[in-house]
C-alpha cells in the first residue's frame, strides 16, 4: 500500500517538474537565459511598456537592496575582526573576557538599536531614495533657533513598529552593523580591567542612545547635515561612511572610558614611564586586521546604499589604496624613526588607521588623494598612540583611540581638504558637488571642523555621564586588583580562554627596560 503511494507521489513530482520547465531549453553558455519571456506580463512574451518599466524599477531597487544587504553582511563580519585584534593584542589570562565582550556587544548593541536606536537615528530621515521610496520615517524632533529648524533626533520606528517595509528593514540591517562597529571600539581601550556587568549595561546604552543621536545629526537629516542648507557651510557636515559617526564616536568613547577606568596594573612605573605589556597572539591580531580590511569593502562601498551607483568601484579602490599606504607608512615610521623594528601591532594599527581615515572621504576624493590620506594616517596613528600613552598616560592596550578617534577626525578633515568635486551632486540638499578647501570650497572645510568639534563635545560629555552612571550601578567600572592580577577569565567569566594550557606567568608580567 505504502509503496503505491510513493510511486504515485514520485510520478506527480516528475510531471509537475516537467510541466513547469517545459519551455526551458538547456543553456550552457548563458547567452539565452533571461529574455522577454522572463518579464512578467499579462500576455506572456508580450509585455507592455508599463510592465517593462515596472520590472526595470523593481530590478533597480532589487540591485540596491542586494548590495546593501551583502555589504551589511560583510560589515557584520568585522565583529570577528575586532574580537581577534583586541584579544590578540591583550594577555592570555584575559582572553575569554576580552572575546566575550566582543561577542556580546553584538547582541547587546543590537537590542539597544532595535529598541530605540534606529528610531532616534532614522525616524526622521524622510523618503528612502534608493531602497524603494517608503516615506514613513518622517518624524524628526526639531527645535527652532536663528529662524531655522534644528533636527535633534527621530521619533519613528521604536522596536521597528509602524515601519514594516522591505526598504526600512534593509536600512535597519545595514545601519545596525555600523552601530556595532562603534560599540565594540571601547572594549579594546578598556580591555583587561573592565567589569563585565559594567560593560553589559554600556553595550545596550551605546546602541540605544549614544550612537544614534550623533548619527541622526549627520545621517538622519539632523542639524549637522543641514548646516549647508541653513547657513551655506558647504554641504553641511559630510561623512560618507562614518569616520565621525562610527569611528570617532567609538574612539572618543574609548578615550573617555580608558581615562576614567585608569591604566592596567603595571602599565606605568612610579616615574610615569610606560611598560610594554605584549599582546599574547600577534598572528590572531593580524588575521583580525585582514577580516576588518575585508569587511571595509562593505563598510565604504556599501554606504552608497545603491548597487546601481557605480561610484562604488572608485570607493572600493580608494579604500584599499588608503589601507595599503596607511600600513606602509606606519611600518616605515616604526622601522626607520621609532624603535628600529617594523612593529607588527603598529602595522595593524596603521592599516586600520588608513581605513578609518578614508571612510569619510572615500566617495569624494580621487585615488591620489586617498593614497596621501592613508600615508598621513599611518604616521598620525603612531604619534597619536605615543602621545596618548606617554604624555596623557591613558592606557589603551590596542590603540583604539589613536586608530578610530584621531584618524576619524583626520578623515573628516581630509574630506574638507581633498574632496575634488567629482561626486555628491545635491548632497544634503545643497546643489552642486562636494568640494574641499583645495578645490575651492573653504566653507566645506569649516563644516567638517564643526562636525569634529561637535562629536568630541557631544560624545565626550554623554560618554562621561553614562560611564559615571554605570559605575554607580555596578559599584565601579573596574574589577578589583586581585582579579586583575590573576586574570579576569575565572573571576569574571568562570572559564579560562585557554583551559588546560599552562600560561607562562613571566610573559604575563609587565616588563620594562
Amino acid at each position, binding site marked *: 500500500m505504502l509503496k503505491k503511494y510513493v510511486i504515485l507521489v514520485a510520478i506527480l513530482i516528475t510531471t509537475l517538474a516537467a510541466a513547469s520547465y517545459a519551455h526551458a531549453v538547456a543553456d550552457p553558455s548563458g547567452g539565452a537565459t533571461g529574455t522577454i519571456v522572463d518579464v512578467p506580463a499579462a500576455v506572456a512574451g508580450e509585455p507592455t511598456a508599463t510592465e517593462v518599466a515596472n520590472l526595470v524599477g523593481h530590478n533597480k531597487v532589487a540591485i540596491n537592496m542586494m548590495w546593501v544587504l551583502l555589504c551589511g553582511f560583510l560589515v557584520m563580519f568585522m565583529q570577528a575582526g575586532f574580537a581577534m585584534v583586541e584579544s590578540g593584542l591583550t594577555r592570555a589570562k584575559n582572553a575569554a573576557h576580552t572575546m566575550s565582550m566582543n561577542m556580546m556587544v553584538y547582541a547587546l548593541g543590537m537590542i539597544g538599536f532595535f529598541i530605540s536606536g534606529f528610531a532616534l537615528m532614522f525616524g526622521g530621515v524622510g523618503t528612502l531614495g534608493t531602497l524603494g521610496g517608503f516615506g514613513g520615517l518622517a518624524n524628526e524632533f526639531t527645535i527652532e533657533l536663528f529662524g531655522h529648524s534644528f533636527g535633534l533626533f527621530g521619533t519613528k520606528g521604536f522596536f521597528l513598529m509602524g515601519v514594516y517595509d522591505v526598504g526600512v528593514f534593509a536600512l535597519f540591517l545595514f545601519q545596525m552593523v555600523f552601530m556595532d562597529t562603534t560599540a565594540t571600539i571601547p572594549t579594546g581601550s578598556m580591555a583587561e580591567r573592565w567589569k563585565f556587568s559594567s560593560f553589559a549595561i554600556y553595550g545596550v546604552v551605546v546602541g540605544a542612545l549614544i550612537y544614534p543621536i550623533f548619527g541622526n545629526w549627520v545621517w538622519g537629516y539632523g542639524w549637522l547635515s543641514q548646516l549647508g542648507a541653513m547657513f551655506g557651510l558647504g554641504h553641511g557636515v559630510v561623512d560618507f561612511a562614518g569616520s565621525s559617526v562610527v569611528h570617532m564616536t567609538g574612539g572618543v568613547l574609548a578615550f573617555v572610558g580608558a581615562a576614567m577606568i585608569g591604566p592596567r596594573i603595571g602599565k606605568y612605573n612610579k616615574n610615569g614611564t*610606560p*611598560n*610594554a*605589556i*605584549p*599582546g599574547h597572539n600577534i598572528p590572531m591580531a593580524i588575521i583580525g586586521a585582514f577580516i576588518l580590511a575585508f569587511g571595509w569593502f562593505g563598510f565604504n562601498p556599501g554606504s552608497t546604499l545603491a548597487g546601481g551607483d557605480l561610484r562604488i568601484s572608485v570607493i572600493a579602490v580608494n579604500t584599499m589604496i588608503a589601507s595599503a599606504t596607511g600600513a606602509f607608512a606606519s611600518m616605515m615610521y*616604526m622601522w626607520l624613526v*621609532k*624603535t*628600529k*623594528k617594523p*612593529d607588527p*601591532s*603598529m602595522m595593524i594599527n596603521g592599516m586600520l588607521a588608513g581605513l578609518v581615515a578614508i571612510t569619510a572621504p572615500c566617495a569624494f576624493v580621487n585615488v591620489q588623494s586617498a593614497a596621501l590620506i592613508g600615508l598621513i594616517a599611518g604616521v598620525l596613528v*603612531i604619534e597619536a*598612540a*605615543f602621545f596618548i*600613552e*606617554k604624555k596623557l598616560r591613558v592606557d589603551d592596550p590596542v*590603540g583604539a583611540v589613536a586608530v578610530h578617534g584621531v584618524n576619524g577626525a583626520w578623515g573628516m578633515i581630509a574630506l574638507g581638504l581633498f574632496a575634488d568635486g567629482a561626486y555628491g551632486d545635491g548632497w544634503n540638499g545643497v546643489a552642486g558637488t562636494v568640494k574641499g578647501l583645495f578645490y575651492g570650497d573653504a566653507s566645506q572645510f569649516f563644516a567638517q571642523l564643526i562636525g569634529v568639534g561637535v562629536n568630541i563635545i557631544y560624545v565626550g560629555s554623554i560618554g562621561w555621564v553614562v560611564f559615571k552612571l554605570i559605575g554607580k550601578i555596578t559599584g565601579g567600572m573596574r574589577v578589583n586588583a586581585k582579579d586583575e592580577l590573576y586574570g579576569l577569565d575565572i573571576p569574571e567569566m568562570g572559564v579560562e580562554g585557554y583551559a588546560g594550557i599552562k600560561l607562562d606567568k*613571566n610573559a604575563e608580567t609587565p*616588563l*620594562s*627596560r
Partner: protein
Amino acid sequence: MKKVEAIIRTTKFEEVKTELKKIGIDFFSYWDASGVGNELTRGHHSYRGTVYDTEYISRIFISIVLRDVNVEKTIKCIEKAAYTGEIGDGMIFIYNIEESVRISNGAHGDESTKGPGDSL
C-alpha cells in the same frame, strides 16, 4: 653512585644528547629552565614603541644518575659538547647518591641504574 646535573644552552642540547649517547649515556631526565644572570638577551624586545629586556634566560637542565665508573667521562663529554667559550655556557654539578631503586624489578644500587643491554 653520583648524580650529574648540568645547565646548558638550549641551542647545545641536541649536541650534548648526541655525544652522551655515543659514550653510552642514553638514559636521563631534562627540563626547560629559566634563570637570571649576567648574559644580556640577544636583541632588545620592542612592543608598541616601548623597548624592553626580558632578563629571563632560558636554558636546558639535565639530570643524570650514574654509576661511579661513568662519572668522569660524562662530565668531560658535557663540558666539550656544551662549550662555546662565551659567558653563559652553563654549569655542571656532581652529587653523591645514597641509594636508588628501580621500581619495575626492585633492583637496588648500581644494579638499578643499568640500562637494557648494559654490560656494566
